[in-house]
């Protein structure tokens, strides 16, 4: 670990600066959470590559950086509309540098009992639910694993201020998707923000949520934590799109608690940041759940993209399916670690995990580690990892139709990741992300024109 107590570090120093301000926000229980989390973070410090969970990801940029506490920036609606996700038709909740931006959010008539907005505004009617779940879902306490590392959850919680809150009462099905948009613009020097999202879907409710992290300008550190609670038979399609500025650091933890018979789909799309780390942790707390984890990451230059997933099969008869794909060019570094824990009770677990990577240059690297720990005896668990080139027969097929080899290769690279985006069932979101993927690849790949589509 990097000891942050002996040498002054902005991530520690900011706390005493902000303590007073933070304490005015939220109920007393928030202050308890903050204090505990700050103590834990100060104690453990920042991870280094000697720590198992960060073995391949150097966080030197964080260690060396000085990040001022985030403050609002001026971003107007036009600027937002010009971004990749600016045209998504959804109930939108926007934050700028961690601060709720009602002028960039949309007002909709919502079904009775539904809340979609900031945590701060949500506290009025839903304090009980917020206090019950916040911090309870992201914890790894009492869960299997010998290398559990919660430092970036501690850090986020230590600076707990605002974030998005989505609440669906029993039996409500939301027709429009929800878009939670976190914009960062560090136009006055490096800053750090701590977006916190809580999504609670009570029994039999059903929603689609797009959670976007988009960089507008500058060097910054986004430390995000999202907690998702799915009651019995609840259904959530949760697409997370991250396209931060190229010199920024993004470390996000997405923790999910699934009740019996619930269905959770995560589509995790990562394009941005100098260092991008995503943890998706799913705790299966009831029987007959279904979990789909889909991931697509694309990195060029000196980008590092680290995806860690863990699924805790704590109850019997649950199914999980996971497909993570990574495209890396130039000197980019990729990491995939997929943990599946099958607890002693979790008989009849069916877990499938696949991860695939395409390396477009000899200097790009990927480190892949499926990690299955199984303590039940009647289970089906499979995993497969491939790192490779494009399939020769697909390449020939495209060429035989008149598409020259470089374009055919580009098309297949695009298709490799686009296959993951096809899992998104909100058509506008799928189209927008396909376009974003296309643009991301266009610089390096010779892709056929797509205009008019």
């Amino acid at each position, binding site marked *: 670990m990097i000891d942050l107590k002996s040498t002054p570090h902005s991530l520690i120093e900011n706390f005493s600066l902000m303590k007073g301000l933070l304490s005015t926000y939220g109920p007393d229980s928030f202050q308890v959470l903050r204090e505990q989390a700050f103590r834990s973070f100060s104690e453990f410090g920042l991870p280094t590559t000697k720590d198992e969970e960060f073995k391949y990801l150097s966080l030197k940029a964080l260690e060396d950086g000085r990040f001022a506490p985030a403050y609002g920036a001026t971003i107007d609606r036009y600027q937002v509309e010009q971004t990749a996700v600016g045209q998504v038709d959804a109930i939108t909740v926007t934050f700028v540098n961690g601060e709720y931006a009602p002028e960039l959010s949309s007002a909709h008539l919502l079904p009775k009992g539904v809340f979609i907005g900031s945590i701060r505004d949500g506290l009025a009617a839903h304090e009980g639910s917020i206090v019950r779940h916040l911090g309870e879902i992201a914890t790894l306490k009492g869960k299997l694993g010998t290398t559990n590392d919660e430092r970036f959850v501690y850090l986020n919680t230590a600076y707990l201020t605002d974030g998005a809150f989505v609440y669906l009462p029993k039996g409500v099905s939301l027709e429009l998707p929800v878009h939670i948009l976190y914009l960062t613009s560090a136009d006055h020097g490096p800053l750090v923000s701590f977006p916190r999202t809580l999504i609670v879907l009570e029994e039999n409710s059903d929603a689609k949520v797009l959670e976007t992290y988009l960089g507008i300008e500058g060097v910054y550190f986004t430390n995000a934590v999202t907690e998702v609670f799915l009651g019995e038979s609840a259904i959530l399609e949760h697409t997370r799109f991250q396209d931060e500025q190229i010199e920024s650091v993004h470390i996000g933890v997405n923790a999910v608690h699934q009740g019996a018979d619930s269905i959770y789909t995560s589509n995790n799309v990562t394009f941005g940041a100098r260092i991008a780390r995503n943890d998706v942790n799913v705790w299966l707390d009831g029987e007959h759940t279904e979990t789909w984890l889909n991931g697509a990451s694309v990195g060029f230059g000196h980008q590092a993209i680290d995806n860690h997933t863990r699924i805790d099969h704590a109850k019997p008869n649950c199914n999980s399916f996971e497909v993570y794909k990574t495209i890396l060019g130039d000197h980019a570094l990729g990491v995939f670690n997929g943990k599946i824990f099958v607890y002693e009770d979790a008989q009849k677990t069916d877990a499938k995990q696949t991860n695939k990577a395409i390396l477009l240059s000899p200097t790009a690297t990927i480190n892949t580690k499926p990690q299955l720990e199984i303590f039940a005896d009647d289970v089906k668990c499979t995993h497969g990892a491939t790192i490779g080139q494009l399939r020769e027969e697909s390449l020939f097929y495209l*060429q*035989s139709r*008149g598409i020259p*080899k470089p374009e055919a290769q580009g098309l297949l690279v*695009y298709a490799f990741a*686009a296959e993951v*985006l096809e899992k998104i069932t909100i058509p506008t979101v799928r189209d927008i992300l396909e376009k974003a993927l296309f643009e991301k690849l266009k610089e390096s790949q010779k892709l*056929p024109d797509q205009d008019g589509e």
Partner: protein
Amino acid sequence: MLEIKNLHARVEDKEILRGIDLSVKAGETHAIMGPNGSGKSTLASVIAGKSGYEVTSGSVELNGLDLLEMEPAERAAAGVFLAFQYPVEIPGVTNTYFLRAALNNIRRSRGEHELSMSDFMKHIKSKVLLMDMENSLLSRSVNEGFSGGEKKRNEIFQMAVLEPSLAVLDETDSGLDIDALKVVANGVNALRSPDRAIVVVTHYQRLLNYIVPDYVHILMDGRIVKSGGKELAFELEEKGYGFVEEELASKA
């Protein structure tokens, strides 16, 4: 149109084609029949430029152009189309995007202007009707989740869109039930024209009931051992490939 002379080709150390001579004129339809392992699919692959085959001697020309010197995409631009025996699934690329990229590349290399999205859509809608296909298929990924019959139908649809001068159909009948076979054959027949040549590679005579060839060639052991009119296909169907072997043996 297509002139193949003394073509020898091998895969690794195994010689598969051992001296093929074939001349196909514009407007003609030729069937190449032969037992498994006779080299039919190899011939189709060599014409289209699939890697893994080494041509050791001979030539393949299309309208005077040396195909063997060209990349597969250049051959397509020159007018070659191969309908695959096993069409490849390309998840993540829609049929529309794929075909527009293909057609515009071909048009560009011929010095023709690219088709705008709306002109392109007009062009393919008529072909969709021709092949009796669902419109929704256009926005689906190339061949992904298609049944065997749908894949073959999609091959002929692509051929209709790209309008090649030489179409080589590699075992297009395999895996098709009779209804699908008729749709595919109708599609091919609709594309027969005085300035287009079609080479049908098949093991069975069945397809030739619907796509009636002008000439039939029997390929055995890497050589064309017998050529004739469409009646040769019926003779084969009746007597099996054994009769050709016997005939050859008696001549030897």
